[in-house]
């Protein structure tokens, strides 16, 4: 028998990211769901609050961030579910990388097609709410960083609840408290940019630190959660 040679870890992670990306892209309507949700809810605010520009632009940072948080919650509810049902998740045990790393390609693919996408198109919604132009770059960067943190935290919750019936509401209860610091700091970054003399770099730096910390810690919690859900 020739000596067994599997994929290298790097090849594997690249292939899996590609797999998840093509899966997401093969169902564009599902992929764009969080984005449509974001648009629909944003439209509701001017209708509910009235069209006064000052009121809307005062509330805009909070509205944009709360709705972004909710669409991230929606995304988390889809994480791992299909892979659990069709047996792909248990095959990760045989992957050439540790489980903590093997779960990351899916998170990366999801973040690229939802969190990052939302951050990129957010200026359109922000301008509809009358957010001043100098706040657009802080909005985009805070959403990009914050959604990555929320994706990792959501991954922890999703890993813990993927084996549970009707895990959706439960997942919300588990991860919303964890999202709160991200919401506070993220919306602050945008508010600072709106204020005269405000400086959004401190909140943005905090989000960067949160992303680094959750990149280091969350994969282990995700792996522990997946082991529990797979009864390993």
């Amino acid at each position, binding site marked *: 028998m020739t000596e067994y040679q599997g994929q290298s870890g790097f090849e594997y992670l690249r292939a899996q990211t590609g797999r998840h990306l093509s899966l997401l892209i093969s169902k564009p309507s599902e992929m764009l769901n969080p984005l449509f949700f974001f648009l629909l809810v944003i439209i509701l605010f001017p209708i509910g609050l009235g069209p006064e520009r000052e009121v809307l632009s005062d509330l805009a940072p909070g509205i944009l961030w709360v709705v972004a948080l909710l669409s991230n919650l929606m995304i988390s509810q889809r994480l791992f579910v299909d892979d659990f049902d069709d047996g792909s998740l248990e095959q990760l045990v045989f992957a050439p990388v540790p489980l903590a790393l093997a779960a990351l390609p899916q998170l990366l693919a999801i973040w690229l097609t939802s969190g990052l996408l939302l951050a990129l198109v957010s200026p359109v919604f922000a301008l509809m709410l009358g957010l001043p132009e100098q706040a657009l770059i802080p909005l985009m960067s805070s959403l990009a960083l914050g959604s990555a943190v929320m994706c990792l935290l959501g991954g922890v919750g999703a890993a*813990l609840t993927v084996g*549970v*019936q009707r895990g959706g509401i*439960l997942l919300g*209860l588990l991860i919303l*408290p964890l999202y709160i610091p991200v919401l506070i700091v993220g919306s602050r970054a945008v508010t600072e940019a709106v204020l005269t003399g405000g400086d959004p770099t401190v909140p943005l730096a905090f989000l960067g630190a949160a992303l680094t910390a959750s990149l280091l*810690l969350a994969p282990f*919690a995700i792996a522990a959660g997946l082991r*529990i859900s797979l*009864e390993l």
Partner: protein
Amino acid sequence: MWRIVHQFGSPPWVYRFCERVIPWLLPITFTALVIGSLWGLLYAPTDYKQGDSYRIIYIHVPAAVVALAGYYVMAAAGLVSLVWKIKLADTAMRAAAPIGAAYTAIALITGAIWGKPTWGAWWVWDARITSMLILLFLYLGVIALFEAYENKAIAARACAVLSLVGTVNIPIIYKSVDWWYSLHQPASIKFTGPSAIDASMLYPLLGMIITFYALFAVLMMINLRDLLLDDHRSSAWLKKQLEA
């Protein structure tokens, strides 16, 4: 063979310990609770600014302090259960969660009652109250996650992981909520911290905090005993224990 060794581990010892301690700790705690309440509600001086309404502090603050400590008790039990795979630690975690949640709820309710005469509203988004609310959700999450799993051994592991994730996050949540509050704080609302209060008010407060800790301990033992009774229904040691 292994199963027998496991069963002769600590559960019988802990069960007997609970049985022995509860009968005297429960009355002591109860008496302390009555004395502390009377001291705080009747003998401690009236606050010059808030009048008598401040007296709810003798329930609110101890409940809040112990509620937070209770989360760490739960998470510590979870850590022990994950690292050393001791089943008893699972049981301790399950015993602590509902008590902690109840303490948190008491802190929130008394906070709301206190808020009405002090700030003129039942609910004020004060930093501490907001943090308490988030803590309540953290507790409810652990309890709901435990209920969601059919296999309770797996449920306990999941809860242990969740409570550890919560432990890492609690300081961050508290800090960020403090920061959020300080940015939005209206100047008229001020919270008198316990350190600023007079000794005649402070001692009954400290007494109540200690009593609330004791109450947490005794309630946890009662819970632990009941859970052990339930988990070990069919084991020989329990039958022997109950006959004796």
